[in-house]
């Protein structure tokens, strides 16, 4: 198993993931910062490196609609978008979710207008947390490539059959080049079997998704709920299978830091990456601080989180999103821990909205500031301004 070292942007890494997954139908509409991802795929197709149909749709709503159609036709489908495009897709997001079509989509997170803003924020992806999609947040380019491949394996597992969003920050990851190990196609082929779908059969014609009366509808939603529940264990299985073949370990949650932490930073995506840099500095200076990186946001890893926080005094949740008056990650973490045996104090921070820089120095200062007053009662949401 020889893996070739490349220097790829996050978008390029995603495109390689799509190519290695042998996606067959790509339907996408351009939007910054996603464009270089779909352009790279188009280049792979043009050069004959990827045998796929690329549908140049006229809007994101149609991009996902086409993917749903393609998936029904038995083809492995892929799309990618950001902010406004993702919002324009929302009707189709539910359609793919509840329709159980295993589409994989890269969400290159971006702040939602108005005002216009092309830099990263997680609200666009997190606002879609109810649409029936599995959501995985990546914090560097290697993880993006690997997660696209894992996403298809999770999504197409018969026990799951749910679409997957692979989310990563616009520019800070999408346009940042980093070392990336690119697996061999043959190794990915043995990890990821081909996809097919036999719903459409002229011998046994089916009418897909016509009207359902309330009692039956209730039952269909329960069937969806069971699949969503099962997906947590399937995600773990796929992680382990990927680890055994490619040697890279991923989990629903990643715990980072050297010592038994008294305080955990909790973060996702590129904010978690900056948080790792901050934890390195803090640990070197002897501060008992760690990071809990939430990688799998849907289904939310409640059990793993409850176990991870045991022993900690406080959680410093770094939300690069906003749901009216609170960060979305904070509401999920608080909810997940409500009935837990061990419930550390929760300090909610809003960071990096609109693409504002989340510098590791500002995180170090904030944590030091907090450690001095960790026994006080948390005073609601704190907006963390980042300086150099």
């Amino acid at each position, binding site marked *: 198993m020889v893996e070739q*070292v490349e*220097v790829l942007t996050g978008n390029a890494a995603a495109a390689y993931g799509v190519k290695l997954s042998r996606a067959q139908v790509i339907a996408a509409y351009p939007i910054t910062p996603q464009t270089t991802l779909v352009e790279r795929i188009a280049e792979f197709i043009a050069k004959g490196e990827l045998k796929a149909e690329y549908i140049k749709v006229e809007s994101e709503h149609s991009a996902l609609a086409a993917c749903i159609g393609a998936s029904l036709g038995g083809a492995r489908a892929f799309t990618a978008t950001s902010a406004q495009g993702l919002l324009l897709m929302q009707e189709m997001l539910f359609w793919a979710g509840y329709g159980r079509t295993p589409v994989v989509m890269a969400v290159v997170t971006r702040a939602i207008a108005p005002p216009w803003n092309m830099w990263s924020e997680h609200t666009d992806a997190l606002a879609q947390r109810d649409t029936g999609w599995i959501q995985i947040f990546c914090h560097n380019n290697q993880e993006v490539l690997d997660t696209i491949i894992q996403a298809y394996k999770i999504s197409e597992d018969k026990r799951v059959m749910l679409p997957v969003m692979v989310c990563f920050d616009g*520019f800070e*990851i999408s346009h*940042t*080049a980093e070392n990336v190990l690119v697996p061999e196609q043959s190794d990915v082929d043995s990890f990821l079997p081909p996809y097919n779908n036999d719903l459409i059969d002229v011998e046994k014609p089916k009418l897909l998704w016509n009207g359902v009366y309330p009692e039956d509808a209730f039952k269909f939603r329960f069937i969806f709920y069971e699949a969503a529940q099962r997906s947590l264990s399937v995600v773990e299985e796929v992680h382990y299978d990927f680890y055994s073949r490619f040697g890279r370990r991923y989990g629903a949650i990643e715990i980072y830091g050297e010592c038994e932490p008294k305080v955990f930073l909790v973060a996702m995506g590129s904010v978690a990456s900056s948080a790792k840099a901050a934890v390195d500095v803090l640990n070197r200076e002897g501060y008992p601080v760690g990071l809990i990186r939430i990688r799998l946001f849907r289904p939310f890893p409640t059990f793993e989180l409850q176990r991870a926080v045991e022993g900690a005094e406080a959680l410093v949740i770094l939300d690069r999103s906003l749901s009216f008056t609170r960060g979305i990650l904070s509401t999920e973490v608080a909810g997940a821990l409500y009935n837990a045996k061990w419930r550390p104090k929760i300090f909610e921070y809003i960071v990096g909205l609109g693409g504002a*820089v989340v510098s*590791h120095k500002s995180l170090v200062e904030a944590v030091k500031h907090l450690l001095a007053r960790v026994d006080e009662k948390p005073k609601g949401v704190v907006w963390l301004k980042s300086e*150099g």
Partner: protein
Amino acid sequence: MIELRFHGRGGQGVATAAELFARAAAYDGWFVQSTPFFGAERRGALVVAYARASDSRIWLREPVYNPDILVVFDQRALSEESVLSGLKDGCKILVNSNWHPKDIKASIDKEVDVYTVDATEISVKYLGRPIINTTLLGSLASISKLFSLNSIRRSILYRFPKINIEATMKAVEEAANRVVDMRY
């Protein structure tokens, strides 16, 4: 970890230079990162790009505030406040200029090492027109010692498979040899 900042005008290939640098350094075993500033890159407008090289995985997701190496494609950019922001002692500044580095250092009050090379003249000689970004990489190799000329060649070919690599590398090699260190 070494942090670099590249400054120039839109259209001079500043972001590409950062990427070419990163790939070259990666070929020589470094963990790297390169990020273009995400502003609207209009031709002529000042642009910046960042790069890093380290012996371990890089977690930073922020601009380069205090560069170890500053690469300036256009001497006039030095008058811009943002170009010299966060300058620290010991920073190596590579400027595309036909001036002697001492004359440029004169206007900078930090203990920095200034290097100059006339990448414009060199590239015109071998390529017929000013190609600043690839040419400057030669000088950058000499003063940073982070990557070899061969790695630059591989990095350029990866990004521009149809480029006239021989002529490009002639300019790179000359820029590597003719870069002037202010102390001499």
